[in-house]
């Protein structure tokens, strides 16, 4: 048996996801020694059916935070508790943990060699053990839901950016993830295509999906967030309701960030 050290804060009843003292560094570019600290002791809770929005400048650690939660990068220190279980523990089967979450990327990351339908059915068939028929039925339903019912047999490069991102959202949703991670999902889109994706996300929010969202869209953050976290230099610098953080920020860094956005 592997020894389990249980401290009271290991268990966070109620929270679907809890980050405790999460630290992540990368090798500093160009330097032979020294590491760039990207996440410098993050504490964060996401309750079920809630939407937490991460804002902050480029390089403030938003994407890295989502990636470490999705176990795509390993943390240097700290805990990532999913339903109270520390999934940052390397003894855990990461594939099983990842299968409980859905991640949507800034650059869509659809598989270009697979049709939209096959992009969506890949994980249900390989990871969740669905038959092809079951998986395709669920995929068509989900694609219809995101407005792509007529494009199931197209290849990703035959879709517009907005359609590709909606397909990527369908690919994540079809596995019924407990937690949806959205990484700057509209940043690569033409301005007129942003709306269709944000509307879809607002719908998902309304039906009670648990979401952790990194975004530059302050209007969207105001619309969907239960809590906004402003990240600065790898720390949660300010947090609260969207009205507080975006409307009446208490700290100078937050104010400066918002001023730059509106300038």
């Amino acid at each position, binding site marked *: 048996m592997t020894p389990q050290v249980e401290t009271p804060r290991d268990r966070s009843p109620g929270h679907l996801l809890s980050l405790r003292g999460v630290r992540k560094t990368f090798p500093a570019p160009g330097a032979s020694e020294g590491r760039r600290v990207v996440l410098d002791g993050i504490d964060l809770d996401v309750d079920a059916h809630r939407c937490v929005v991460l804002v902050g400048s480029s390089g403030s650690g938003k994407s890295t935070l989502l990636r470490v939660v999705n176990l795509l990068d390993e943390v240097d220190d700290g805990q990532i508790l999913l339903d109270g279980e520390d999934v940052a523990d390397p003894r855990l089967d990461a*594939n099983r943990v*990842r*299968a409980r979450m859905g*991640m949507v*990327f800034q650059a869509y*990351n659809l*598989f270009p060699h697979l049709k939209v339908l096959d992009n969506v059915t890949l994980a249900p068939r*390989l990871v969740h053990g669905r038959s092809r028929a079951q998986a395709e039925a669920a995929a068509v339903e989900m694609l219809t839901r995101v407005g792509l019912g007529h494009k199931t047999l197209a290849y990703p490069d035959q879709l517009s950016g907005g359609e590709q991102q909606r397909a990527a959202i369908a690919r994540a949703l079809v*596995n019924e993830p407990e937690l949806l991670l959205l990484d700057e999902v509209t940043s690569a889109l033409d301005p007129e295509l942003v709306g269709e994706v944000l509307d879809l996300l607002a719908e998902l929010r309304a039906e009670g999906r648990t979401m952790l969202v990194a975004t530059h869209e302050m209007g969207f953050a105001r619309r969907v967030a239960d809590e906004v976290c402003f990240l600065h230099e790898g720390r949660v610098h300010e947090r609260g309701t969207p009205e507080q953080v975006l409307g009446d920020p208490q700290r100078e860094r937050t104010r400066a960030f918002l001023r730059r956005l509106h300038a």
Partner: protein
Amino acid sequence: MTVPDDVRPPGHAGTPAAATGTAWSPSPLALERAAFRRAQRRRSLLVALVSTVIVAVTVVLVVVNAPGWERARTAFFDPQNAWASLPAILEGLWLNLRVWVVAGVVGTLLGLGLAIARTSRVPALFPLRAFAVAYVDLFRGVPLLLVLLLVGFGLPALRLEWLPTSGAFLGALAIVLTYTAYLAEVFRAGIESVHPSQVAAARSLGLTRAQTTRRVVLPQAVRNVTAPLANNLVSLQKDSGLISVLGAVDAIRAAQIATTGSYNFTPYVVAGALFFLVSFPLTRAVDAYQARRGWGRSLATVSGAGDIR
């Protein structure tokens, strides 16, 4: 009305005149430009034609009037000699084709296996990974002819009872040994050309490493290296002629036998023409396949990559 090709907006040639927007008939300005383009195209065609004729005639005249042309013609292009040597060379070519197919299939599979082993991160495969690196380095750095001689003459000298000693078998073995290294490098380049974000997306969905390799990385990798892969297989087809060194009677050896005793080299030309006839359609087929797959086509439709004035 159908709009003539010349007056369509540039860059959209070939697309059917879609019924979008208001009815449009070309303005006098457009018609005048179209007429100019037509005239310019006719002129280009004429220039190309004239220059081709001039060059062709010059080449023919130079060759035919060159001293020794008569001798060259009978020594290399003697129809009777060609006809007489053809059956033996064709029979030899059949051996080349069999060696080519077998070596091509075996080399491709082994090369793919080596490339996967080399790019995998499974700890248990470390010995295989080390072997793959050493193997590829060694066989890429040694001439094929040398491998052929070592295998063809060296292995039989060991007097292994179970080892076939035919030149064709040993020759194919040597070719497989060398081409496996080349093909492994081709596949490795393909695997490394797949963007890491593709792996992230697959793993994020819960796919295992093996599933990600099999379902996401390899299909894209193979598609990305179709052209270099085909080039290697074509050159393998040609190198299958090297087994003649070991005494296997392939097309080249058959041609060599046919030339013995005479100073007529037509059989070599016949063998060369046959090799060409096999490889040429293959290269063209690969080009066509790539164009149809869209990877190349998408570049051509990028604005600016087309026919720039």
